[in-house]
């Protein structure tokens, strides 16, 4: 694999730019409920050394196992030793790796397109925002691209190592998230369509396929199966995890097509990318990427305006992206981070589109104007990325903020830390969290430093009330009845800790009560 030094330097610069956009204030945004769930599931692995795949929720094991690296690096041994940085550095790492992997495709996409793809990946607001999220998506996108890039390299020199690496990436994809099946389902028709187009140009499909050595194909499949099985079985501690990984598809299929609170219309993702806005906030658009991707798609199919590239690779990416976009749009269940899988394909096509557009202009001046427009549009993407990742990182006006915790959860945890300092039991202080349907996340993350926290779905009259009670507004009356109306007497007076309702997420209200004695003591100690 050879590529010019300039291409290497530019892609490296893009990776550095990506890092500088993703790394600052990594702990500033409040933890999303999903991040907190992932964090506590990782803590089980960290503390007990064991992991058990759950086919109903929480996706595959790669995120958990790979988080061990930064945890070990920071000598973390328990949940209280880890912080947001320990966790979120993992997706940041794979976001940067995703850019560096473009080096493997530079000769296929063309150097200019590879560089543009690197820049667009680095500055895409969706990519920047979700690179800082402790969820599985960035890993899935990176492993998927790794599989495509390795397979492409294999087609160049039939080297056994690339066949193995392709298998490893395929296995990692499968072990990351159940939605990897959508990527597999997109790759297959994309491959077939690419081969069909090859035949139309006179190339022999059978000759092409014959170049793949059966032993290499077996090695690829074996590598994928071994990696996936190792991870799902928790390195053979839980062999049933392998069967569970297969059984999970029934669950996810039902969820994907069933009646869910995450069901959105087919155009949800495209609308999110092309135009989002609300009266309370700014307008958002990654329409540049969608527009350029459309140009790139047409160019890949017609082969017009492109030279010095591997047209079969381009066509594969075009078909793969189109099929994946259709599949994700067709599935009713939609969460915004899922779109990263096909958005990456759109970015690759957009890079082709940008090159085609600049080459369309025959003279220097029009070409310069097009370049200038693309640069300004790219800067606008960067501006939006900064706004998404920092200014509006947890604000509902940000289209990528989805079911996100408010800063109130940090305020609650901060106040409880202050109270613990004056409580005789300190962090052993008894706290109760009462929310219907276990809807209290990410509070378990923020209360991880407290050793006596009980979580309840409803008000249990048999449980003695704790000195601090965090209760959903829906259960406030039931709590009041327990505290004041039910026998026996001689009870504490409870008062709200805050002068307003706090919000777990927008529209999900919490009230925090403390005993009056405790609040008086706390206020007495305030300067």
């Amino acid at each position, binding site marked *: 694999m050879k590529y*010019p030094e300039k291409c290497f330097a530019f892609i490296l610069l893009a990776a550095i730019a990506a890092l500088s956009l993703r790394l600052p204030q990594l702990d500033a945004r409040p933890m999303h409920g999903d991040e907190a769930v992932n964090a506590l599931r990782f803590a089980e692995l960290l503390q007990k050394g064991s992991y058990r795949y*759950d086919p109903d929720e929480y996706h595959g094991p790669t995120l958990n196992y790979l988080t061990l690296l930064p945890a070990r690096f920071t000598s973390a*041994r328990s949940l209280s030793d880890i912080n947001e940085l320990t966790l979120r550095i993992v997706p940041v790492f794979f976001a940067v790796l995703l850019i560096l992997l473009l080096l493997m495709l530079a000769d296929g996409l063309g150097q200019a397109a590879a560089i543009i793809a690197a820049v667009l990946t680095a500055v895409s607001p969706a990519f920047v925002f979700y690179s800082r999220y402790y969820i599985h998506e960035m890993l899935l996108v990176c492993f998927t691209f790794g599989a495509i890039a390795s397979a492409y390299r294999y087609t160049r020199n039939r080297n056994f190592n690339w066949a193995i*690496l392709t298998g490893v990436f395929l296995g990692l994809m499968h072990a990351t998230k159940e939605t990897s099946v959508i990527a597999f389902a997109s790759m297959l028709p994309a491959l077939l369509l690419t081969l069909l187009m090859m035949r139309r140009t006179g190339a022999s499909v059978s000759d092409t396929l014959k170049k793949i050595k059966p032993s290499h194909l077996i090695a690829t499949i074996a590598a994928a199966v071994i990696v996936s099985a190792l991870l799902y079985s928790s*390195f053979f501690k839980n062999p049933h995890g392998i069967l569970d990984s297969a059984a999970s598809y029934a669950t996810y299929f039902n969820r994907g097509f069933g009646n869910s609170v995450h069901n959105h219309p087919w155009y949800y993702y495209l609308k999110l990318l092309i135009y989002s806005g609300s009266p309370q906030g700014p307008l958002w658009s990654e329409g540049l990427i969608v527009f350029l991707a459309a140009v790139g798609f047409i160019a890949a199919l017609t082969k017009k305006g492109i030279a010095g590239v591997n047209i079969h690779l381009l066509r594969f990416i075009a078909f793969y992206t189109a099929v994946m976009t259709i599949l994700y749009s067709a599935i009713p269940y939609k969460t915004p981070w899922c779109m990263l899988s096909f958005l990456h394909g759109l970015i690759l096509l957009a890079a082709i589109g940008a090159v085609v557009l600049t080459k369309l202009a025959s003279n220097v001046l029009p070409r310069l104007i097009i370049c200038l427009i693309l640069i300004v549009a790219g800067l606008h993407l960067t501006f939006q990325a900064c706004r998404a990742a920092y200014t509006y990182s947890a604000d509902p006006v940000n289209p990528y903020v989805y079911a996100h915790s408010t800063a109130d959860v940090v305020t609650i945890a901060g106040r409880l830390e202050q109270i613990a300092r004056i409580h005789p*039991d300190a962090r052993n202080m008894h706290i109760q969290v009462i929310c219907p349907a276990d*809807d209290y996340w990410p509070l378990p993350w923020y209360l991880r430093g407290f050793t006596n926290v009980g979580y309840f779905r409803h008000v249990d009259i048999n449980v003695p009330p704790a000195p601090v009670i965090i209760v959903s507004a829906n259960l406030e009356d039931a709590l009041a009845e327990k505290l004041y109306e039910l026998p026996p007497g001689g009870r504490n007076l409870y008062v709200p800790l805050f002068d307003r309702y706090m919000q777990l997420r927008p529209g*999900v209200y919490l009230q925090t009560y403390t005993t009056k004695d405790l609040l008086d003591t706390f206020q007495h100690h305030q300067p």
Partner: protein
Amino acid sequence: MQSIRFSSRMKIYAVLLLVFVLFVPSCKKTSPQSSPDKAKSSNSNAQTATPGTPPSGLVPIPIELPNPMFVGTPQDFKVSNLEKPLGKPRPPFLAPPGTENAAFLKTVAATDDVPIIGEIEMITDGDKQATDGSYVELGPFLQSVTIDFQADYDIYAVLLWHYHQQARVYYDVIVQLADDPDFITNVRTLFNNDSDNSSGLGIGSDMHYVETAEGKLIDAKGARARYVRLYSNGNSSNELNHYIEVEVFGKPAK
């Protein structure tokens, strides 16, 4: 032109690093030196409350605290001016004796003549279930339904259910009374949560609310009318409009 080569040695190193990363955790043993505090901080174990120093002769009550339960991605609500949940069943709404549901089985007209799902008549058929077969789905954008009581009524309350199978917020919910089917004469607005006048019917000061099985009860304060019209403009899950049931409580005007 100079070039850089991705050596096969680098590839081997990369594969070795990957294998190392994957296998290291399987070799992990629980450290016997782990402090009890740290072990306790795991939310995967049941925890025991340890109150402050007890008076002599007394021992702490061993309270078993439940661990947090893992849940999936919560629902997204991007709705401004959202009403806080009541936290308890709605208190009884009081009206004069003889008050009845004036809308029951009465004629309904809709801006969407051909609903995507269901029939317009389902809006006043008395079926308040949220299951399939009990609701009508109208098209996107601003849609309205108009119920003709076939006589003047003194209206005390309007109770409506858009769709309560999942928590949703419907936008631009506007409820009006009038004396004529075209809503020209004596139009009175009982409820309006259109905060940006996207309906073109004026800005309302009422709050958005989450659909529940209790339905939304709107006080009509005894206003006399023959027609009620209800508007909506999509919801927090999609751009369509739904109705399960509309009940209008009133007494025939004398």
